[in-house]
């Protein structure tokens, strides 16, 4: 086995700038949200071709289900002309990989994948040069193939990468302008491939943060607030300290942890802590009128799109519709509740944390304890889902603080209820749309006002613009008070904004009596949008009919992270039960590195988005979450899952954009539109099954 440590590995090393180019404007939310972390080096090792001819790629991203380890390996393998099995990808360990802001916004393939392709192409060129020297032939007459460099022509000379690299230690600077493999030369990319990390996942060998055990580790359970924002006044720990298995109770300000020899003993200790709290704001007994709160507290209007004079144009329209849509808080609820293990070695700290931001957490921990970032190592092992919720990772802080005081390694692992209650939620939103249109369904004016809960305006802005051709338009988003903490959720506010917009487009279709696919096409000139819509409709077997047609078919389109998606849902409604039978989605994410991986992401997005459409809503009183846990918060199960067909329509010569998020953007509206098509009842509030009851 070759040395996998980038700092010490021998062979051919490709170094390059840590930054993979300026973030596109759409990820400015990330800079705004997580600006506390900055790279501590300008250069990093991106790729090593080892002396045995295999390769290791290094990336600061993490694997939490997107399949990027596989996608990145495919990209490196293709540029390096190696089998995928000969490429290893090291992720998410701050000691080993290039600095990265975090794994969000579908940037892994779009930016890091491109960087690794350039690194691998640079390595390929270097290997050709090594062979040219060895064969004393011009490099132009050589080609790399299946881990060898060969001279053209029959009987030409050839050498394996291992032979070329034997005894060598070569370093090259990543060439930003290196010639990448053109699509016609692909042998690995754009072909469906299995996950390279599948075996570890089916045998139980894959190690997640919850699975990490270190010598001398104690299991901690933490005293939790009864409601968001509550402050600890006093706590009596005397009974807890006498409980079986409890080693000690540690208090650090408002953080109180019971350290024990097992999760169960620690939890039993916390259960007998006698704590007094000051609860802020609303009395827990007072239900909040959330729609009213969102509108009344809306502030900081931000215009994401503006053209013409919509208020005047409404007067010239043949028809005008105005409608309000409401979307509740939902929970990310990944299958692995957050967990962290912290170990101090003197003033050096190592934390195993299933976070989407290992470098951001490293910065936070260094700042908290007043130590250098180089004294902190954050290791993100396999991560059991996140969908945005594992960007903030307070559990890492809790483990590090408790371990510091206890003088031994400490593990903090949230229970399911903790993970759901002491979390962030997708912001609730209230969206009002006014549209003006002609009798043929062509839009003339569009006013969109979105009130999104929480103090992170970028969440609500995303995906609020309309992609339809409309001469007079104004789209404004507001920041509203939030009784619950809000945070990232797959596609941020895009799925929320799309639910309102795409529902409203169907309302226009019903008003003018035009088929809903046809209505969209009449208002769409963007060629990529038209293509996904036409492909999804054709693949589904869509037949034009004005809604409601009783067929139970609904369509919606969407764009997120630069990728285009159109989704058709087919369903039946029995009483308050909606049964989604079949979904067809078309995705254009440009060059699709691993079509099977992209398909998997869209299938999953459809199921997750179906949950938000039909079942999911966080219930709360004051700052208290009432339905933390799977007894009272329903998420989709295999018995709910529709058959999903995914059409991938991206062109190989269009740069890759994200595949993990766009699939969730249209699905809720497609389902609501299909419910209208089936029943003739327009539902403007999620989740639909609750409204139907």
């Amino acid at each position, binding site marked *: 086995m070759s040395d996998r440590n980038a700092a010490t590995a021998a062979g051919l090393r490709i170094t390059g700038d840590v930054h993979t180019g300026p973030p596109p404007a759409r990820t400015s939310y990330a800079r705004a949200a997580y600006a506390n972390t900055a790279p501590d080096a300008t250069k990093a090792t991106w790729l090593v071709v080892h002396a045995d001819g295999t390769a290791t790629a290094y990336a600061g991203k993490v*694997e*939490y*289900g*997107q*399949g990027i380890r596989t996608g990145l390996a495919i990209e490196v393998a293709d540029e390096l002309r190696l089998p995928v099995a000969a490429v290893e990808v090291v992720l998410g360990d701050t000691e080993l990989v290039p600095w990265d802001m975090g794994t969000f916004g579908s940037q892994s393939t779009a930016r890091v994948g491109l960087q690794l392709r350039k690194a691998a192409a640079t390595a390929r060129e270097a290997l050709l040069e090594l062979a040219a020297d060895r064969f004393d032939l011009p490099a132009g007459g050589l080609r790399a193939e299946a881990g060898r460099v060969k001279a053209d022509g029959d009987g030409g000379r050839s050498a394996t990468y291992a032979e070329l690299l034997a005894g060598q230690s070569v370093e090259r600077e990543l060439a930003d302008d290196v010639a990448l493999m053109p699509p016609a030369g692909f042998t690995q990319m754009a072909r469906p491939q*299995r*996950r390279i*990390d*599948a*075996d*570890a*996942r*089916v*045998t*139980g*060998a*894959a*190690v*997640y943060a*919850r*699975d990490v*055990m270190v010598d001398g580790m104690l299991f901690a359970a933490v005293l939790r607030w009864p409601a968001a924002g509550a402050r600890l006044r006093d706590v009596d720990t005397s009974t807890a300290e006498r409980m079986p298995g409890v080693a000690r109770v540690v208090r650090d300000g408002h953080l109180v942890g019971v350290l024990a020899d*097992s*999760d*169960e003993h620690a939890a039993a200790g916390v259960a007998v802590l006698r704590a007094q709290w000051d609860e802020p704001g609303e009395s827990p007994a007072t239900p909040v009128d959330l729609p009213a709160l969102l509108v009344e507290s809306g502030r900081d209007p931000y215009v994401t799109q503006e053209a013409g004079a919509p208020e005047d144009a409404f007067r010239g329209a043949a028809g005008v519709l105005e409608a309000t849509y409401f979307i509740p808080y939902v929970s990310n*609820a*990944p*299958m*692995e*509740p957050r967990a962290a293990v912290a170990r101090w070695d003197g003033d050096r700290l190592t934390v195993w944390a299933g976070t989407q931001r290992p470098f951001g957490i490293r910065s936070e921990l260094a700042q908290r304890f007043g130590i250098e970032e180089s004294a902190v190592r954050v290791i993100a092992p*396999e*991560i*059991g*889902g*996140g*969908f945005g919720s594992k960007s903030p990772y307070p559990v890492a802080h809790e483990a590090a603080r408790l371990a510091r005081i206890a003088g031994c390694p400490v593990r903090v*692992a949230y*229970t*399911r209820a903790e993970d759901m209650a002491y979390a962030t939620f997708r912001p609730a939103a209230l969206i009002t749309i006014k549209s003006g249109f002609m009798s043929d369904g062509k839009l003339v004016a569009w006013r969109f006002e979105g009130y999104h809960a929480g103090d992170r305006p970028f969440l609500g802005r995303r995906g609020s613009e309309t992609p339809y051709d409309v001469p007079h338009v104004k789209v404004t988003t507001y920041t509203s008070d939030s009784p619950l903490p809000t945070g990232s959720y797959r596609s941020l506010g895009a799925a929320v904004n799309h639910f309102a917009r795409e529902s409203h487009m169907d309302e226009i279709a019903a008003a003018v009596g035009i088929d809903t696919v046809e209505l969209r096409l009449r208002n769409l000139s963007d060629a990529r949008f038209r293509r996904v819509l036409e492909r999804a409709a054709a693949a589904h077997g869509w037949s034009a009919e004005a809604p409601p047609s009783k067929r139970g078919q609904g369509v919606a389109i969407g764009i997120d992270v630069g990728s285009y998606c159109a989704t058709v849902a087919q369903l039946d409604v029995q009483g308050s039960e909606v049964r989604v039978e079949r979904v067809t989605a078309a995705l254009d994410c440009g060059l699709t590195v691993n079509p*099977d*991986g992209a398909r*998997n*992401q869209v*299938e*999953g*997005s*459809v*199921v*997750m988005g179906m949950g938000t459409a039909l079942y999911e809503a966080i219930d709360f009183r004051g700052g208290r979450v009432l339905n933390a*846990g*799977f*007894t009272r918060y329903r*998420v*989709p*199960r*295999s*018995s709910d*899952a529709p*058959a*999903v067909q995914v059409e991938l329509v991206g062109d190989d010569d269009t740069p890759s954009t994200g595949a993990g998020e766009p699939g969730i953007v249209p699905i809720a509206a497609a389902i609501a539109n299909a419910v209208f098509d089936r029943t003739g009842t327009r539902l403007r509030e999620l989740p639909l099954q609750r409204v139907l009851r």
Partner: protein
Amino acid sequence: MVTLQINGQTRDAPDAARNLLSYIRFDARLTGTKYGCGEGLCGACTVLVDGQPLRACTTTVGAVAGGAITTVEGLARDGVLHPVQQAFVEESAMQCGYCIPGFIMTSVALLGREQRPTRGQIREALSLNMCRCGTYQRILDAVEKAAQATEGAAR
């Protein structure tokens, strides 16, 4: 003191009241069996006891004393994956993978009592397992494939 058999190995458990999932994960150090909810609702902790699926998170060690427990680590034989594991690999029936051991154990139990289950039976048997990544279609495909493979091998 309780005696257990896990993946063919005999083990002593001093505390009969110990949570079975924690015993498996932290005492036996078989961390393939996962904690997902602690309430028996998500199936991530599913193990087999004498071939029957059991939620380890709501069970004590004492309750399975004398039983033969199989965890996901005990399925492969001499490095060869169990047909159900193999089918999950072939179908890429996973995203984050955290729930997958539980799905595999439930599926192995199903195929143990039903050699050629219908799609509806598979869906029903797996409806108490949860995959938040939403890979249900692939999981159902994988179990169907595994059923065909096992039947083919038995013929």
